[in-house]
């Protein structure tokens, strides 16, 4: 599974990289980028990824196959 950020939805709230700096980085505009594309785990095994998805104020992050 991997984390993805939809750039058309991201406006740069910055929660993802502020709260999960190991998984996300900021670009020059303050928009989120995913550090590592692929995770070997499922949603059950990667609670941080699931949290990041639910916490994005714009719903721009997905964690999917």
């Amino acid at each position: 599974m991997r984390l993805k950020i939809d750039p058309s939805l991201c406006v740069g709230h910055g929660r993802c990289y502020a709260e999960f700096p190991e998984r996300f980085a900021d670009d020059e505009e303050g928009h989120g980028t995913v550090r590592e594309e692929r995770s070997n785990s499922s949603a059950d095994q990667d609670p941080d990824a699931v949290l990041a998805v639910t916490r994005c104020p714009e719903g721009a992050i997905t964690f999917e196959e």
Partner: protein
Amino acid sequence: MSSSRTEAWEYMRSGGEVFLSDGIWYLTSAEACRFAARHPEVFSSSLNGAAAACPVPLYIPNAIDPPEHARYRRLIDPMFSPQAITDQEPELRRRMNALIDRVIDSGRCEVMADIAEVYPTEVFTLMFGLPQEDREKLVGYAHATMAGASNPELGPAAEAAGVELAEYIKEFVAKKRVTPGDDIISKIIATAGLNEDEIIALCFNVIQGGLDTVTSAIGFMMNYLATNPAIRQSLIEDPELVSPFIEEILRLESVAPFLPRFTTQEVEVCGTSIPAQAVVYIGYAVANRDPDEFEQPNDVDLTQSRRSHFGFGAGNHRCLGSHLARRELKVLFEEFHRRIPEYSLAPGAEPKVRWPALVSCLDTVPLTFTPGGTR
């Protein structure tokens, strides 16, 4: 802690997750609040500008709905990003130390007047490139324009102040067009696609959103630390706990307790039907005490990591200034305790929350300590 707030929020929760009272629908559970925050197309913010006494018919981004809302946030969020704030941090520290310099030898500090009401405005004038000597005038405008929302008798005075504030902003926009600086107004002006009304609306919103809220959080934080010396000591000894502590203060004290919306259609929330054209208050302060969400809902709990709360709201309107607010509080914590690690509330002091108000805030937090700040 916060016994009066705990009682108030528990009383609200006892009305139910979703209930109607005096013509207003209150959402009190985490689930109900999250639902409303995630559906701005149903829970519209477009009437929020009326309470702001802003003379232009816009209030950006607080009173803007999708799809325009995202456009505005995309323009301004970078100016308030964690990196943008980090760039300002040396100046934030310098100014905090200057405020501490003024009180440290006296052995007394009234947190609200000496720090809380001053610091956020200094930071604001710094970031917006406004003169420091205009700080008190700005605070006056901010208070006057917002006063009409909780007290209709002050409406005319609020409107007059709104006109003056708009003129003040226009004057600086004109100056910055000629001589741009490294500040947010200059950046906003340089941003393609914002007209003068939009710039004024944006400045109004940021002024009204960023001053009283941080002032309030500072007061609550220092009041808590003054009355809980054991926790204060453990935070000084383990700096890793400071950020989680700040989050807990923001959760427990919820400086913006209720955010208004109105429904564009009939909607079911947690099993209760709310009609269209209804006024809804998203009760983030009550959601922040939801026992289904938080193990120890009414106490500071530093053991929960990665904890999420509603102190900055939720959804697309989530606070633009969250990174700045956190940094201001962190810098205050670090610099104050580096120089004045021991203090207590002055004898006989009884800080109280002024209510009703849009922003929940203590009236006074008088501290005493050894002059010079030594133990």
